[in-house]
């Protein structure tokens, strides 16, 4: 039996084209020893969920700067439920008003990181909370 690894998918749902943050998070997770996939910009919720299924990731990071996060996150989380994906740790990043955070957490998204969050904070959150398979 080999050491298990945390596998993460960093995804950008919606229409904004800014992915510097998403790429920086991807690199930080990789440098912390994780296996990381990045979807690229402008991915649909269907696409993100199917990728998470085929790749059997432990962690899903959703980055959204377009303002459409509520509907996009809702769609991702309900598609995950519909497809019976279990044990996935989901976190979000991007420009998200404080008022939305409780509602986002209700969808099953564990943590929200505002812009400028230290990468080390995201890394240690994942290392603490992800369930390796």
């Amino acid at each position, binding site marked *: *039996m*080999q050491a298990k*690894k945390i596998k993460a998918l960093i995804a950008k749902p919606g229409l904004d084209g800014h992915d510097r943050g998403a790429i920086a998070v*991807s690199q930080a997770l*990789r*440098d*912390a020893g994780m*296996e990381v996939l990045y979807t690229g910009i402008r991915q649909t919720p269907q696409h993100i969920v199917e*990728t998470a299924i085929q*790749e059997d990731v432990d962690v899903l990071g959703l980055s959204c700067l377009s303002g459409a996060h509520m509907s996009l996150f809702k769609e991702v989380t309900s598609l995950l439920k519909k497809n019976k994906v279990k044990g996935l740790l989901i976190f979000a990043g991007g420009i998200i008003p404080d008022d939305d955070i409780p509602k986002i957490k209700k969808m099953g998204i564990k943590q929200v990181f505002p812009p400028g969050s230290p990468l080390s904070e995201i890394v240690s959150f994942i290392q603490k909370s992800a369930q390796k398979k």
Partner: protein
Amino acid sequence: MTPKQLTQKILKKDRLSLARFITLLENRDTKAIEALGDLYPKTGKAIRIGITGPQGVGKSSLLNQLIKEVTKQKKKVGVLAIDPSSALHGGAFLGDRIRMQSHTLNKNVFIRSMATRHNHKGLSSALHDAMTALDAFGCDVIFIETIGIGQDEIAISQLTDLSMLVLSPDFGDKFQALKSGLTETCDLLVVNKIDLPKSKQALATLKEMTYLPVLGVSSKKGTQISVLYKKIIQQYDALKKSKVLDFRRTNQQKAAIREKLEETLLSNFNQFWKDKKIQLEIDRLLQKKKNPNQITKKLSTKL
């Protein structure tokens, strides 16, 4: 769900179970490896094709195009795309998939990225087993993309029905350097990016250097892709007809068994190497009480 239950669901074409089972194989989970026994009898239908070549020549982009060709015929495709794990921190960036993601929502396509995780040949230790799972899942064609470091070229040709080496015209003068060993273990040479300048010359140079079929394509423009796919199928049919395929498939199993035994030996050896006795011997070396040959000889008797 237990690995055994997962295999039953794989046979019923459940994607979630297939994905989870491959994870267990990557972890070399003993129960999952045992459960492969239920899948082996259902294998043999899939054509297994290896794609290798230096970094950045366009292997993933070419795969993206080839997947289109296969799915046009309503066939099922599985892809295993390997990327390197860092020796430093063990992390990996799995970057192949992004080039093929236009196929993600196609139910006839299943793409899975894998990191090498210190596999000593630059493949994935789960590669052969994951192909078994994809084959039993019902894939008609399985493509493997390797990281293209040279030594994985021979390894992948031993684990697939046929394999191709992808190069690009900007290699130009470097073709000569490739000649030693690289080009002859595969069945087909593909020069990608023929939309770039100087590609005619590059193709001509390469054709002079090898007896293998050489084909120029552009994955960016989609040029000659259907010709390439036809060529692959032709080669496969010829292998099948001449029974060379049976021979290769037996050898694939043999290579996979050898690979697993080698890994067991290596892991036993790594355990041995951690022993305190080794350090004691090394200390003697530092004190100049013994020379390296004497130490090697003594330790070799304990292996």
